[in-house]
């Protein structure tokens, strides 16, 4: 018994399919977006439904500086990938490090905010509905920032060892898609928590 090779003799087709890394990442982003949607809906639904304080308008202040940090990291990672694609590995390394630093600054901002909320304002995840939804939504986003920073740091280590070369630009680009998504989610979380919910 022999397998039948299936070919079409006279056919020469142009065959160009999308890169699987990008498609896979877009699919992951769709799944993540669905998870965030549910948390955002829960947050919006519970605005103003807390039975006890503290209320958002009493304790939240808009984190403009750290938001600017996170959003500008999207710009640095984009330019970093472009530099790598053009073969400029040093620029890539500097900008990649800048991305990590900006992301870490954002996390520091969240940590300070949470510290103040817990120790000065007495708001924990079990205090009231605002606490439950606030820490869940911001924490879910924060955990995505942590995962992103861990992945970015691995690439940074590879880059310092001299192992990230222009032919890896496509892979690094896939990771940058994830980082852009994390930033885009922050725009939504920021709007919901600090603008609508306050």
């Amino acid at each position: 018994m022999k397998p039948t090779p299936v070919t079409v003799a006279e056919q020469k087709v142009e065959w160009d399919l999308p890169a699987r890394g990008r498609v896979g990442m877009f699919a992951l982003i769709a799944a993540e977006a669905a998870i965030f949607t549910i948390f955002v809906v829960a947050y919006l639904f519970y605005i103003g439904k807390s039975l006890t304080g503290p209320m958002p308008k009493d304790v939240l202040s808009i984190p403009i500086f750290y938001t600017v940090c996170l959003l500008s990291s999207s710009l640095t990672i984009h330019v970093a990938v472009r530099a790598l694609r053009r073969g400029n590995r040093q620029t890539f390394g500097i900008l990649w490090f800048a991305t990590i630093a900006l992301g870490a600054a954002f996390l520091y901002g969240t940590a300070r905010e949470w510290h103040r909320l817990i120790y000065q304002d007495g708001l924990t995840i079990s205090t009231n509905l605002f606490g439950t939804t606030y820490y869940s939504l911001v924490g879910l986003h924060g955990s995505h920032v942590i995962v992103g920073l861990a992945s970015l740091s691995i690439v940074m280590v590879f880059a310092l060892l001299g192992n990230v070369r222009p032919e890896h630009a496509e892979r690094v680009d896939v990771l940058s898609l994830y980082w852009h998504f994390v930033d885009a989610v922050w725009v939504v979380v920021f709007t919901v928590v600090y603008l609508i919910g306050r």
Partner: protein
Amino acid sequence: MSTDAIALPGTGMASRPLVDALHGWVTTVDHKRLGILYIGYALVFLVIGGIEAGIMRIQLIHAHNDFISPQVFNRMFTMHGTTMIFFVAMPLVFGFANYLVPLMIGARDMAFPRLNAFSFWLTAFGGLLLYFSLVGANGLYGAGNAPDVGWFAYAPLTSKTFSVGHSTDFWTLGLLVSGFGSIGTAINILTTILCMRCPGMALGKMPLLVWLNFVMSGMVILAVSPLTAAQLMLMVDRYLGGHFFDTQAGGSAVIWMHFFWIFGHPEVYVLVIPAFAFASEIIPVFSRKPIFGYPVMVAATICIGFIGMSVWAHHMFTVGMSSNANTFFVLSTMAIAVPTGIKIFNWLATMWGGKIEFTTPMLFCVGFLFQFLIAGLTGIMLSAAPFDWQLGNSYFVVAHFHYVIVGGILFTVFGAFYYWFPKMSGKMCNETLGKLHFWLFLIGFHLTFDFMHVPGLLGMPRRIYTYEPGRGWDVWNLIVTIGVVFQGVGTIVFITNLLWSYYKGKTAGSDPWDAWTLEWSTLSPPPVYNFASIPEIKSRRPLWDLKHPADPDWKYE
């Protein structure tokens, strides 16, 4: 012929010690082996879930029976529902998709083989976690030792107050973990279909099974994620003292229902669309005609996918929503009947005028056509809100969705087993045993689920552990339980057939059904690399073109 590449563990491997063979299975990233692992795993849980159903039916065989206690009854229906949906139906769907999609699109593996293995082991671990609750859930409270909150786990039953101990935690964690596995596999299938097709296979030339699994994967990504989010919230409530579903602190029990059914209803289509996929491959081959209305079939599937995402609250008519919401969900639910009807007519039109061969797979698909039609009709009845107010949460509902899941989905899955078993094992299934299985299961199915509608109409609620005599429910419950015996025997015949055929069945050859899609062009079982040379195709039925060079399909498509 590389039979040892795909043999079941511990068999046909005289040259290799058992440990080596098992090691090969545990560390494999081959889509075919992972597909078989998924399927074998699902079959084990099918038997467990079936035993749980049997225990419930024995308890309900007559009024005031005390075969099991009310507490155990609660655990049985919770474990039965959770097991059958998450650890039988989903792994079966993913197993066949894993095995067939790369072969049908002429690829050598999935897009992400390691993610594939990771997803399978997550799913497997989720199932073990659920059943570990039997040992580990007792805790210090003397509380129940298995989840008993129902498979949709409505708040506030899941709160710490009403569910002490850890049984609900095992339920939550099991579903969370297997949910991650499902999302991983769905991403993998989607990417494989978009990025790994062989030259010439444009989207419009993919086999229908591939198209339908594409839509299924998209739905898993959008529907299982909300369940994951809801489980995370439930864990925040139970472990960290959160208030998402805590009405005492202003939280809402209804929002859990919404979040659960935003997953729960698309899940039905996640399961039934692959069933459509099997029917769409099997019916044409045994009618000796190409599928009728291929583009319309694709369009109808995508349409079902879209509408299926927006009907979830028809599970909640009895909760008391606004009349606007009720109207919307009634109409969107009824709208699903249109693309589904198109599909049924297309399958009938495929059979019309064909040279039909009633082999076992075809018998199961014909049974599916009838039963799925009836399931759809009771579905339309229940989609009318006033009718649902009368019969919501009754045995009529139970009969309806078992008609979908058993009569529709399980029947085509059995058909798929008989159809692709020769490809997976290299051996033909025994036709006599196969037909015996079909008739036993058909009789058992109709005894159980036809007659289950009646006590529902007479007002018997679901999830009661016993009932008073003299309400007119007794004889119906007796018949329903008798049907289970037939289904059980049918399942034993099925498992016997698989095992017997694997060892003693006659050799299948690469193309036993004279079929047309690419998986039949390679060996049975396929070698690890699937295709020695990557195929190139020009039409939807490449093997037809090969067998009939004078009259190929691509001249007409």
